[in-house]
């Protein structure tokens, strides 16, 4: 034993009488609280809280999850649409305002006329009667050209004109004005789409794929590792050979080859799939195929040692079936390390997905993912650096958070490190 530990021990010994006196002065309820055994999850949670970075990272993840899940709400509140293009406002810098182009204005007026034909007619005739706008007579269109001409003017002028009219009830027409001027906190991309809202929808795809892949591959790993560990012998050898072979392959080249496959050449699969989600499902399946191995090895190792334990023997003697032994008696013992593996798996899945999407093989546009937002980053960096900085930063923050949480969980579920 080194000196230091000895010192601390003597230190503790000196402290002990003190502690004893405080113990004896506890009242009934405090004593009860102390003596009560804590449930497992509470011990783990208390331990987890000690890992500061992991604890904060959990909040970061929570924040991202809430943002991703409320993407539609954000669209509704801010009026930003991830797919709305604006050719007149490409590569806008962050914190800038964009004006809609003429064709967007025109189509907005067209929608307005279709939705409120009466109001449009009234407004058009009034504009004509007041002679505010000199328009060629187009009686068959009931003077609707006036509406188009008016909207092309600057906002203030339109508002002033509308204010001059006697009938003030043209709020619907005035409302479409508001949609023309959009504010972009993070600027716009190469076709004038808002970067912020694309990041929000991208969070949904990227984190969603990451979590789904980690969970599903953990399930596959649990199944394969469980079977291999429980039955042993030839089954174990065959399964572990496959696992080791897959584990030894370089991940990115394999993923590239698989994701370059064109599913339309496999008609059986094509019929089952909705084309708009095709690339997401393809990505998910491919990544699951190549990420279950770590969990399988982990589960196999635990099951191998659990197999020799007395409680399994007891269950067997009582006549439990194999399925019961595996599901009821063994799996609860491997859940803790699996939880760690899943959390760490989310991080690496997000990185792999983004790498493939970056290469143009993963999630296909227009569906935004953090990876495919970086798709043509090499050209874009000369126009607007934020287009490259932000999506990558999101990937980085999310992955680092998941890795920290995984590390924290590892410490927390490790019985050797638990302090009571």
């Amino acid at each position, binding site marked *: 034993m080194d000196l230091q530990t000895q010192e601390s021990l003597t230190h503790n010994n000196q402290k002990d009488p003190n502690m004893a006196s405080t113990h004896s002065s506890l009242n009934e309820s405090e004593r009860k609280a102390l003596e009560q055994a804590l449930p497992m999850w509470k011990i783990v949670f208390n331990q987890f809280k000690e890992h500061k*970075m992991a604890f904060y990272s959990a909040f970061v993840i929570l924040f991202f999850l809430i943002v991703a899940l409320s993407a539609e709400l954000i669209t509704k509140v801010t009026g930003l649409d991830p797919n709305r293009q604006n050719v007149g406002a490409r590569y806008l810098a962050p914190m800038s305002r964009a004006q809609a182009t003429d064709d967007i204005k025109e189509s907005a007026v067209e929608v307005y006329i279709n939705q409120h034909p009466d109001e449009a007619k009234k407004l058009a005739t009034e504009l004509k009667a007041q002679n505010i706008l000199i328009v060629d007579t187009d009686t068959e269109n009931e003077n609707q050209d006036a509406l188009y001409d008016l909207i092309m003017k600057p906002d203030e002028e339109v508002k002033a004109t509308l204010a001059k009219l006697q009938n003030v009830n043209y709020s619907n027409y005035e409302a479409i004005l508001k949609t023309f001027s959009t504010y972009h906190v993070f600027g716009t991309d190469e076709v004038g789409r808002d970067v912020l809202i694309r990041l929000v929808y991208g969070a949904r795809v990227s984190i969603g794929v990451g979590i789904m892949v980690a969970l599903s591959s953990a399930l596959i790993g649990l199944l394969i590792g469980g079977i291999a560990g429980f039955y042993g012998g030839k089954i174990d050898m065959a399964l572990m050979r496959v696992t080791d072979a897959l584990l030894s392959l370089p991940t*990115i*080249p394999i993923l590239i080859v698989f994701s370059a496959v064109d599913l339309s050449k496999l008609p059986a699969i094509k019929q089952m799939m909705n084309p708009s989600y095709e690339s997401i499902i393809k990505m998910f399946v491919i990544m699951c195929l190549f990420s279950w191995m770590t969990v399988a090895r982990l589960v196999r190792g635990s099951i191998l040692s659990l197999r020799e334990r007395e409680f399994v023997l007891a269950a067997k003697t009582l006549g439990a079936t194999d399925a019961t032994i595996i599901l009821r008696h063994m799996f609860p013992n491997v859940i803790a390390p699996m939880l760690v593996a899943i959390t760490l798996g989310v991080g690496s899945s997000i990185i792999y997905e983004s790498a493939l999407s970056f290469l143009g093989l993963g999630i296909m546009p227009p569906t935004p993912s953090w990876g495919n937002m970086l798709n043509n980053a090499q050209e874009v960096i000369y126009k607007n650096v934020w287009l490259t900085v932000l999506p990558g930063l999101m990937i*980085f923050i999310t*992955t680092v958070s998941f*890795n920290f949480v995984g590390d924290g969980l590892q410490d927390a579920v490790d019985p050797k490190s638990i302090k009571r």
Partner: protein
Amino acid sequence: MGTYILRRLIQTVIVIGLISYMCFYLMTLMPGDPVELMIQSNPRITSEDIARLRELYNLDQPAYVRYFSWAKDIMSGDLGYSRTYRVPVQELMGPRLKNTFVLSFMALLTSLLIALPFGIYSALKPGSRVDYFVNFFSFGGISIPSFWLGLMLIIIFSVQLGVLPAGGTETIGVDHESTWSFFKDRALYLILPVISLSVQQIGVFVRYIRSSMMEAMRNDFIRTAKAKGLSRFVVVWKHGFRNALIPLITIFALSFSGLFSGAILTETVFAYQGVGKLVYDSIMSNDYNVAMISFIISVSMVLLMNLLADILYGFADPRISYT
């Protein structure tokens, strides 16, 4: 030991065979085939021509027949012809392999040179401020997407500061009067790719080195060495580090797989002319012969390094026995 290596070698060959067949089959499922490309480039092509071309390229045969005839060609040393680059694949692979090897080796060296001192220091002083920062940065290194890091480096050093080239392998069209200026030119193009490839490896290495070193320093013989009154230098390096090195050898050899995987992304970002970029480019442009060969070479390299790792492990640690 001999039979173990032999068995592993046979296993590796089988895995390579299976992987190459799978890859060959997947290539037939990729969009477009060579004849389709010819149809697109020549609108006056007749249907007889198409049938004749398909027969010429054996495209009317099922995949496994084509695979075996392709494998027979490979065995006899004919790697085929690149449709994109218009040269035999052999000629294409040589310089590409050399470039990737230089990149991977430099990245491995850099990450070791940085990771070893930091990992060992933080293992000797756990809980110190340095340990805290090393831990923090290794987490960052593991989590950072290497291609994005590459893009950030381009933005900072090429676009903003303009001190380093944004991509490529060497300055095109320059005659180097001396070998020194040639090396200087190549080195300039290597700096950014090596950094972006190393950062993740540093993160991984530091964590392994730290835990392995801590494990080694916990041994009884370390206490004995200390009690004997050996100097701290001898205790740490001769007794601690040498034992910590055993598991690390495997990690370093296995890291080759990660470097090779990462090299595809790094080479694509920096337009560095290596095997990784060749794999990606040839798959994207339907250059089957090149894609197959470069893919199989990268997989074989990784598998052989894994094998080497296992063998080295046996040599480094006499306690391991192979049966």
